[in-house]
């Protein structure tokens, strides 16, 4: 416990305390909450948001935003499932899915960074383009996974030693890798610098455009991994998949202390943000609280978190 506390920064510590409070409250409110099975369930369920949130945080830290990730989830799952159905190869489907993800990241990045269009506008446009393309291609019907491969099924549904969801393990590994990259490599520090003060970063000789472009690609690439896990969990490329997903990710990331203005925040904080929202969603569900209340809770959290972010920035000016 001491190690955890030493590792966490001030803001993250506050978040961790909030998480503990939420956890304890639900443990006493629902007899099913504090069970190994439920905790493992939550860890698997949250991995989809967690992985996308890592990429989204990297991009926010670099001073840009991508709100097309929900539509991307639906879009890249089409080459994934179609390739699997046609060729019978899961790896080929996964590779194509990731390639499409990277391409979308490159397009978003090119328009935002090299043509200077606001990333909010570019990715808003991409959100509609991808969702429209999904509807057109699928005829608004889900494409089922006809291969029914055990390997693919286990990505989103299987458990290591029958206990730990593989999806949770994938999420944790990606989190640790990117925490290391952002904290301990010059690349990570450059992203913070670019997002924090672009002019200073330019004077320091950083290749701002390339750094930002790479952040766009990371964001789309990690969202594509989320798409693979989601497609495995729902056994299909689903035209409505990822609807409003971007807002869930924004809520978690902002709650985790990643600033919308760029240059501030950590992946540990973002991960705790995801954890808090996932635990709240799970706990409310176990208590039979209406799904609509969960939407309200998410909305309130976004407003409070962004409000705090604004306050912090105003004070530091």
């Amino acid at each position: 416990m001491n190690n955890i506390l030493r590792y966490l920064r001030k803001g993250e510590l506050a978040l961790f305390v909030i998480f503990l409070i939420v956890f304890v409250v639900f443990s006493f409110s629902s007899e099913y909450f504090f069970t190994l099975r439920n905790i493992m369930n939550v860890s698997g369920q949250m991995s989809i948001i967690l992985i996308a949130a890592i990429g989204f945080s990297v991009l926010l830290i670099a001073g840009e935003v991508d709100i097309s990730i929900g539509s991307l989830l639906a879009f890249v799952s089409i080459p994934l499932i179609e390739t699997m159905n046609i060729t019978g190869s899961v790896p080929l489907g996964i590779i194509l899915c990731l390639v499409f993800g990277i391409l979308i990241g490159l397009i978003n990045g090119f328009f935002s960074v090299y043509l200077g269009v606001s990333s909010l506008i570019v990715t808003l446009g991409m959100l509609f383009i991808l969702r429209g393309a999904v509807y057109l291609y699928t005829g608004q019907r889900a494409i089922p996974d006809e291969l029914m491969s055990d390997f693919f099924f286990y990505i989103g549904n299987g458990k290591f030693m029958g206990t730990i969801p593989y999806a949770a393990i994938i999420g944790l590994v990606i989190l640790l890798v990117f925490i290391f990259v952002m904290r301990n490599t010059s690349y990570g520090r450059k992203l913070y610098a670019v997002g924090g003060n672009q002019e200073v970063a330019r004077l320091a000789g950083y290749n701002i455009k390339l750094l930002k472009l790479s952040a766009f690609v990371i964001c789309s690439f990690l969202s594509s991994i989320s798409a693979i896990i989601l497609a495995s969990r729902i056994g299909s490329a689903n035209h409505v998949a990822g609807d409003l997903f971007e807002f869930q990710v924004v809520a978690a990331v902002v709650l985790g202390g990643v600033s919308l203005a760029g240059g501030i925040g950590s992946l540990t904080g973002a991960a705790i943000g995801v954890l808090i929202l996932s635990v709240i969603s799970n706990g409310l569900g176990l208590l039979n609280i209406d799904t609509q209340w969960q939407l309200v809770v998410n909305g309130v959290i976004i407003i409070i978190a962004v409000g705090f972010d604004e306050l912090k920035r105003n004070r530091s000016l």
Partner: protein
Amino acid sequence: MKIVSWFLAAVITLSLAFSVSADPKRIGYIVNYGTHEWYQNVIFGLQSRADELGIELEVMDANLDINKQTQQAEDFMTKGVDVLIMTPVNEEGVVPILRKAKAEGMPTVLEGNPAKGMTTLFAICDYDAGYKAGDAVGRILVSRGETEARVMDVGLPLLSATLLRSLGFMEALAEHVNAVKVHELDGSGMIDSSVEVASAALAADSNINVIYGINDGSALGGLQAWRAAGLPEDDLIVAGTGSEGLAFLNEMTKEGTPYLVEAAMFPEGVGYTGMNLAVDLFNGVDVPEHKVTPTLALTVHNFAKYYDFDKAGQKRAINFENVAKIPTESKCTKYSSDL
């Protein structure tokens, strides 16, 4: 001999007692879209039967989010409910859930649409429901001395279920009169979209005498467009589908309304039947792959047999007993594979 008889009687009594106490204690239901009137009435039916049987019913709403539905199914498995009932957000998306539930030995019942790997399903027959409405409209036309039905079909061509309804309606109609589909519209199943597309269609050709809607909103949207165009209602017949809520009853009970027929699907009855099916499945009773729930052509003359409608208080109460007496098909006349 007397001792043997007593012994046998005791054994029978005990086994009966056992079979009664074997009913499930808790059942979980994941609705796909709980804010829709249809599903609220399905839940009412499930709850009514659960109350009668002393079963605790827990409901979660996936709110049209298939990922959420998957999580909720996992939550219900964690809670260890005795039976899981689901209305799939979409059929393909629940296949992994069914696989997981089977691996855990959890009995699962679907509502509405079949999915690969399911055990049993309770749902209406869409073709037959449309057919019954078409048959009723055909009879009215014949009684009026009409020989032709010129139909505006406010449909939803995206879904096979709604296509089947329209098909059943037209085929039944054709058995009575010369049935011509003048307009085949996509009203998206929503009243506002239906008004919009129907208005445009009527502007192009208003020479019709039948409006059919694949649900209540579609039928009422078609009628609203007709009225907005200022067209006479004397020779018009409107038929809706679903008996989803209060809107069709409000219209049908108006003096001189052209809304004469409703392909009633009794959502409360759907829920009631579903609960019985869940209990049967739990108790190891041999259940059908598709338990067909009752449908009927409802008119202003027979609706009171099935619904106690309080127009002033805007409430309706279903008569489960009479709905249960409606003869149901053992299987549907046509399925989506027949389209």
